[in-house]
């Protein structure tokens, strides 16, 4: 049933050294990503959700080798990307692209949209006439729902949604197989957000793209993703089909996240149960002992502070990292 995954991440770790003063004395370690594993099949979307600072962006950047990882493997078509020599990596680099929350920060303000896309397109080194280049850039603009005239505009002359479209066109100019979408709609109004989500879905259907979709809005992820990873402090604590995220959440953190989202459905909202989380996500510098979630967990017991749970794969399609999730879900279901 399962196809070979196009991307497979195994026990990925990214630890940042925390240094002080000009002598760069090492005073600690930020375990931004600490043993993350997941895989995604071609043409599918995997969602990664969690509060800010839990390591979502760093995971994406590690896959792209934009930050160096401290351990683990990232396979792209069964080749370990992290072990590749520079030259080898250069060959596959264009196949995995990233789009960002704020395309403004990643678009050169002095270049027109046209030249931003063109620059990336011609970097593949293929021989093209300038007519061919113009044609290809214009096709990309149209593909992301912009008119050719939009190419003449500069980033500041574009709206947030239009800028995100340019960011997508620029990624597509590399003819990628995988796009890591890092909060691509978080800064947009709902009306525009829906346009971009629909565009990403259309492109996926037409081009067979695979997405790693990072977001903190669970409803958005539920909508676009096939499979979801819930992250907390550098770890994945639960994974499941996106359809099960709201109907069968098992980890107390997932449950709390879901109950924190207010829903638009007026009558449903009035009847929902809420689990309030105390405090905020701790800094990964002061990572709690035992289960990293225990200081905020409403159901934590003594054991949780002492030992770190491992993934329970009783249901291989729905692994959970919690000692007591079974008891918990027995209690709440009756």
């Amino acid at each position, binding site marked *: 049933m399962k196809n070979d995954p196009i991307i497979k991440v195994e026990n990925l770790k990214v630890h940042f050294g925390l240094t002080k003063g000009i002598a760069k004395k090492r005073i600690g370690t930020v375990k931004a990503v600490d043993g993350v594993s997941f895989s995604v099949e071609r043409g599918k979307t995997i969602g990664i959700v969690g*509060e*800010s600072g839990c390591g979502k962006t760093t995971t994406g950047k590690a896959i792209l080798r934009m930050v160096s990882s401290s351990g683990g493997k990232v396979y792209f078509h069964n080749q370990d990307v992290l072990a590749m020599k520079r030259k080898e990596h250069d060959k596959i680099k264009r196949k995995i692209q990233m789009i960002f929350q704020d395309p403004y920060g990643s678009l050169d303000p002095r270049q027109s949209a046209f030249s931003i896309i063109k620059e990336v397109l011609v970097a593949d080194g293929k021989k093209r006439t300038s007519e061919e280049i113009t044609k290809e850039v214009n096709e990309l603009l149209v593909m992301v729902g912009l008119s050719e005239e939009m190419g003449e505009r500069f980033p500041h002359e574009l*709206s947030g*949604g239009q800028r995100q479209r340019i960011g997508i066109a620029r990624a597509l100019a590399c003819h990628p197989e995988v796009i890591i979408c890092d909060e691509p709609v978080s800064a947009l*109004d*709902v*009306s*525009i*957000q*829906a*346009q971009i*989500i*629909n565009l990403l879905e259309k492109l996926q259907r037409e081009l067979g793209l695979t997405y790693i979709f990072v977001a*903190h*809005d*669970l*409803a*958005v992820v*539920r*909508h676009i993703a096939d499979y979801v990873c819930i992250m907390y402090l550098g770890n994945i604590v639960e994974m499941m089909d996106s*359809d099960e995220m*709201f*109907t069968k959440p098992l980890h107390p953190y997932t449950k*709390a*996240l*879901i109950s*924190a*989202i*207010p*829903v*638009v*459905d*007026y*009558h*449903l*909202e009035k009847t929902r149960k*809420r689990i*309030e*989380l105390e405090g*905020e*996500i701790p800094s990964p510098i002061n990572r709690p002992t035992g289960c990293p979630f225990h200081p905020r967990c409403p159901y934590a017991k003594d054991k949780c502070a002492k030992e770190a749970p491992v993934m329970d794969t009783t249901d291989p399609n729905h692994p959970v990292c919690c000692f007591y999730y079974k008891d918990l879900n027995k209690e709440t279901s009756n």
Partner: protein
Amino acid sequence: MGERLLDCKNLKVSFFMTGSTVQAVRDVSFHVDRNEVVAVVGESGCGKSVTQMSIMQLIQTPPGKILSGDVTFDGIELLRGGKPIADMNQVRGNRIAMIFQEPMTSLNPVFKIGNQFVDVLRAHNKGMSKKEAWALGAKALDEVGIPDAELRMRNYPFELSGGMRQRVLIAFAVACQADLIIADEPTTALDVTVQAQVMELLMDIKKKNNSSIVIVTHNLGLVSRYADRIYVMYAGQIVESGTSEQILTDPKHPYTKGLLNAVPQIQADKKSDLVPIEGAPPSLAKLDDRCAFLPRCAMKCDSCPSKASPVLREYGTDGHMVACHLFDEEVAK
């Protein structure tokens, strides 16, 4: 009907830029009763913030100018015909508190939290000593759930997380026992869990102090959870208003319907296609006298382009208001 706390009538605000005039607020009327949570929703750039800033008389002049509007707060006339009447220093921060999306803009980065409390409190209570004000500030921080309040009073704003800074602003409102808290996108930059904490806190404060809240947001989920009444704004105007139940379960205006359809739902049976509102809001410097939503409207009639901009009128008899030609006949009945 509750007791009227804030009443704003016919507010018009424009920004006079070189070569163009941005009509940010185009004849907006709204009110807030005591103990009420009122939401103002709409896409960015539709005039939500400028409306609230005008109530506080915080509009940058020039280029901005309040052209008209009568605003009364708890019996005090703040604006008459767009002209300031009351001394805003007696109202602002004291009886009406404002909380912004990015609390850094309202906290002074170079002063300790505690000193800012002392300044705010003593500005309104001339007789209060520094020591008293400090103590009151620490008590307020404690009330809004900031641990080690006394220690936090000595922190600079940048030493706190976004959620904590938002709590500090709420603490200002608590310390001043503000009657009205205007919260402009107070949780937009926060994670959902922290958002829930901040909103619950606001609701607790409201209950304890018998105050009212205006929440400006584009998050319709928040509105559904917390608001009693909703004003939907588009292109500088209110296009629909009513109770949250009316607006969320029986929206009338095509724009309101569009906003609701564009939100991804979490319910199991709702994984259908998202329906975006096509296009983007118009430039407020280039409006004609027709319906501003016309170019994006999925429900427009053949006659809409030839009609003047629809006015906000009651639909039925239960206070549900809508500004759309679709309802011209029903409203007239």
